[in-house]
Structures are given as structure tokens and as C-alpha cells.
């Protein structure tokens, strides 16, 4: 056997061994950052689930995201569920699967929260519920979040994550954009503040409505923020686009984001903003 044969035999054996070992690593133990491609042991992402290399915030369920902000939360409108308005094939099964994965009736968690002792109407969209797509049920919950906040004189903090419209609900999904925008307008007319926090991904009809209507817009590092999906643009204009062309960082440079806030600092930043927003008005004393 020649030397080169030895090398070949050795390398093919090590490759097969590696594959064997790889198969033994349970899913989720080893994480790869979709932004900077760094790979690392999952515990390195820490309690905030961020890439230790570039700060990208991984997509997490709304319940999990809530725990990173506050312990004090009373949930609102837990009974709203979609009614499948188009009678769409297989939609029912998809909803059930998403419900069991996220412990939500539909893709958003809303309620009254205390952040550092200050009351706020808080909404968190769930990217794990059919990619946080906007349907009638989560659209209704977000609308009521603003309506209740207006009635109770509360500021709104809404963390957005959405692939855009819910295809399975057609025109009903599109109408949510106008319905929620109206509730945002009424909230603003009551001189109340709305803070949006752009999470990964925020796209389509959500970008084109309430995610872009806040008084103050924060974003998570490396979050994807855009309207039309990258693939659709590429296929339309027949050109490859850079990976980061719809990043929060690019939006910041173009003037659409007030500040990019790392996940572990969001609680402090919200607390600071709420101290300003809920301060006593001039001439009231």
C-alpha cells in the first residue's frame, strides 16, 4: 500500500467517524449565527440568545422574549383565534402546529406590563408562529393593544417580528394593516407614545404599517428589516443582492431607526424612555 493510499484510507475513515460523532450531537447544542456564520456551543448565546461574535439576536418565542424584559405581566385577549376566513386547505393543521410550538393562539402576546415599576401596554410578536405573519387573530390582538392603551392612557411598546402578510388569509390579512394603523392614529391623537422595537425579521405588511409608525423606533442588532423579500427582488431585477442589504444597521444609516439596542440593554433603555414619557406634564402642578 502506497503512502497516498494510507492517507486516503485514513481521511475517509476520519470523515466517516466525524459524521458518526456529528449524528450524536443533539439538535440545538451547536449553534450557527445566520449573520456572521460563527458557530458556537449553545450556552454561549446566554440567557438573551445572542450571537457571541456579532450580537445578532436569535429568533425566540414571544413568551421567552417577554421573560427577558419583565416578570410582571397580565395577558390581554387570550381568547382570540383565527376563523380561517378563506377556508384555506391545510391551514387548520398549520395553526394547530404553531399553537403547540409557541403556546399562543396566534402570533402575538399582548398585555399590561410593568417595566421597572412603570405601566406599559406591551406586545411581542412571535417569529415562530408561521413566521409571525399577520392574520386576523394577531391583527385583532394588536389593534386591541392600542385601543386598550388609548382607553387607559398608557404608552405602547411593541416588539415586531413578521414575515409579512398571512398568505392563507388573503385580503383579510391586508386589511389588518389599515385596521391597526387606525388604532395607532387614535393612540397618537390621545398624545400617548408608541415605541417600536424591530426584531428579526420585520418585513412586508408589518414594515409597511405599524412597525414604521412609532414615535420612537429601536432595533435589535443585525435584524432584517425591509418590505419586499430579498428573493422576490432578485428574481424581479435579475441581480444578486448583498446579504445585509435589508439590515437594521443599513436602515439606521438611512435615517429610519432611532437607536440599535443590544438585547441585554433593552430593559434599561425602555425604563429610561418610560421615565421621560410618563413624567409629570408642565403646568400640571
Amino acid at each position, binding site marked *: 500500500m502506497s503512502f497516498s493510499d494510507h492517507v486516503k484510507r485514513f481521511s475517509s475513515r476520519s470523515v466517516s467517524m466525524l459524521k458518526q460523532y456529528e449524528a450524536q450531537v443533539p439538535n440545538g447544542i451547536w449553534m450557527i449565527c445566520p449573520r456572521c456564520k460563527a458557530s458556537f456551543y449553545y450556552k454561549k448565546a446566554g440567557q438573551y440568545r445572542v450571537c457571541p461574535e456579532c450580537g445578532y439576536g436569535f429568533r425566540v418565542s414571544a413568551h421567552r422574549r417577554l421573560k427577558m424584559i419583565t416578570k410582571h405581566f397580565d395577558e390581554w385577549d387570550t381568547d382570540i383565534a383565527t376563523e380561517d376566513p378563506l377556508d384555506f386547505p391545510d391551514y387548520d393543521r398549520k395553526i394547530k402546529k404553531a399553537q403547540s410550538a409557541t403556546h399562543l393562539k396566534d402570533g402575538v402576546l399582548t398585555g399590561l406590563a410593568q417595566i421597572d415599576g412603570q405601566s406599559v401596554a406591551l406586545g411581542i410578536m412571535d417569529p415562530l408562529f408561521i413566521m409571525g405573519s399577520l392574520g386576523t387573530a394577531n391583527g385583532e390582538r394588536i389593534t386591541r393593544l392600542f385601543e386598550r392603551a388609548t382607553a387607559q392612557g398608557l404608552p405602547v411598546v411593541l416588539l415586531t417580528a413578521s414575515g409579512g402578510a398571512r398568505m392563507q388569509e388573503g385580503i383579510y390579512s391586508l386589511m389588518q394593516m389599515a385596521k391597526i394603523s387606525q388604532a395607532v392614529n387614535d393612540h*397618537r391623537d390621545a*398624545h*400617548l*407614545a408608541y415605541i417600536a422595537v424591530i426584531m428579526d425579521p420585520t418585513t412586508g405588511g408589518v414594515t409597511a404599517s405599524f412597525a414604521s409608525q412609532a*414615535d*420612537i423606533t429601536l432595533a435589535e442588532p443585525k435584524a432584517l428589516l425591509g418590505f419586499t423579500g430579498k428573493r422576490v427582488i432578485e428574481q424581479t431585477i435579475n441581480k444578486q443582492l448583498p446579504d445585509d442589504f435589508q439590515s437594521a444597521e443599513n436602515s*439606521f*444609516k*438611512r*435615517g*429610519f*431607526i*432611532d*437607536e440599535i439596542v443590544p438585547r441585554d440593554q433593552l430593559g434599561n*433603555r425602555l425604563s*429610561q*424612555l418610560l*421615565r*421621560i*414619557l410618563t*413624567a*409629570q*406634564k*408642565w*403646568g400640571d402642578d
Partner: protein
Amino acid sequence: MATATDIVTAARSDQKANSYELIETLFEDFFEMHGDQTDGDDAAIIAGLARLGEHPVAVIATQKGITLEERMASHFGSPEPAGYRKALRVMKTADQLNFPIITLINTPGAYPGADAEAAGQGQMIAKNIAEMLKLRVPILTLIIGEAGSGGALALACSDQIWMFENSMYSILSPEGFASIMWKDAHLADKAADLMRLTPEWLLKQHAIHRIIPEVMLSDGSLKTALETELTALAKQDVNQRLAQRAAFFRKF
């Protein structure tokens, strides 16, 4: 008494409080807002929300920068159209939230650049002036150092206009004036004298409301004066306040 040239020198002094330092001294919890929500973020304008004592305010300031890099980025405190757009959108947010607005001005004027012209420098200043006159919340302007041309007025259509004693407010920079009048920017000293840009003269003409001795910044009494003034303005009827704001400019 200080001559116009002395005032110009003092107004431009490096010893002048930097806008960020001034904000730090006067306000708490300052949150800086970035971007014009159209095209970019101009480093020459700082805008955000904060508390002045117990109460909320919006703060808009021009920024000259300290390091050379900062000064290049802000064109030595000369805003571009994106800066005026950022200022206006934050002022409108303040109007919605019913927060009074404080503007801190230290600018030779709007940036004279080809891109700025193409992006509508004049139009943006025009829009700011028109919109500021309509804002329903109290607006107070403090001129820190230089306040030149429409670039300064775009942030100074206010209910109260105060000037530090070492500051200047004029139709444009003395250099610009000299170059227009005599085609020679080197005659700036002569121009400064003729332009009547000192706080004393401006107060006599009722072009400003109050002169602030700079010691009021270090001894803390400026903060108290701002609180007293904003409280008084907030207690006024909105329509009366807007009528007074209009009358202030109507008299010229």
C-alpha cells in the same frame, strides 16, 4: 463694553460648552433620536427626549463637534437638509406628546454644499420655519455661540429666544457678509461691527427676549430659569401663545 469683534471671537471660542456637555448639564435621561426617516442622519443636529427637572422636554441642538473627525462629520455645525428634517420630525413628536421644545443653537449657518442644495436645503429651512410657527407646544431657543442665517432661524421660530452674553445672531456670518458687500471675506471685522449682531443691540430691538450671563450655566441658575419659563409658557392658553409668537415676528 465688548466690541462686535470681541463678541464674534468669544462666540466662536473653543472654550464654549459643547452641545452634548450642555445637554448633560441641563437635562436628565437624555435619549438621542437618530435619522430623518427619509434619507439619513445628520451629525450636525442632535435631537431627542429628556427630562428637565421633573418634567419632559424635547431637545434639539446643533453640534459643532470637538475632534477634527466630528467637526468634519458635522461640517463645523452646519446642518444639511437631513438635519433639518430630523429636527422637524422630533419637534412634531414633541408636539404630539405635549412636550415643550428647547433648541440650543451654535451654527455658522446651513451647510453650503452642492449635495445639500440638490437635496433642497432652502426648501427644508422654509418648511421648518412654517411648521415651527404652528407647533402648539412651548418652544424656547438658547443661542450658545453663533447663530447665522436661515440655518439658525430654522430652529429659532420660538416663544422665547435667549442668548448667552458671548454669542451672536445675524443674517449670515461676518465673512459671508463681507464677501457679498465688498467681495472680500477678510473684511469680517468691519462687517461684524456694521451687522449689529451683539445680544445687547438685539435685545433693544426686541429681536430676542433675554440675555443669559454665562455664569448662569455654571451656577445652576440657568436650569431654574428654564424651568420657570417653561412652566409659565405651559400655563398660557395655547392660542394666546401662538398669537404672541406670531406678533413677535410680525413687528419687524
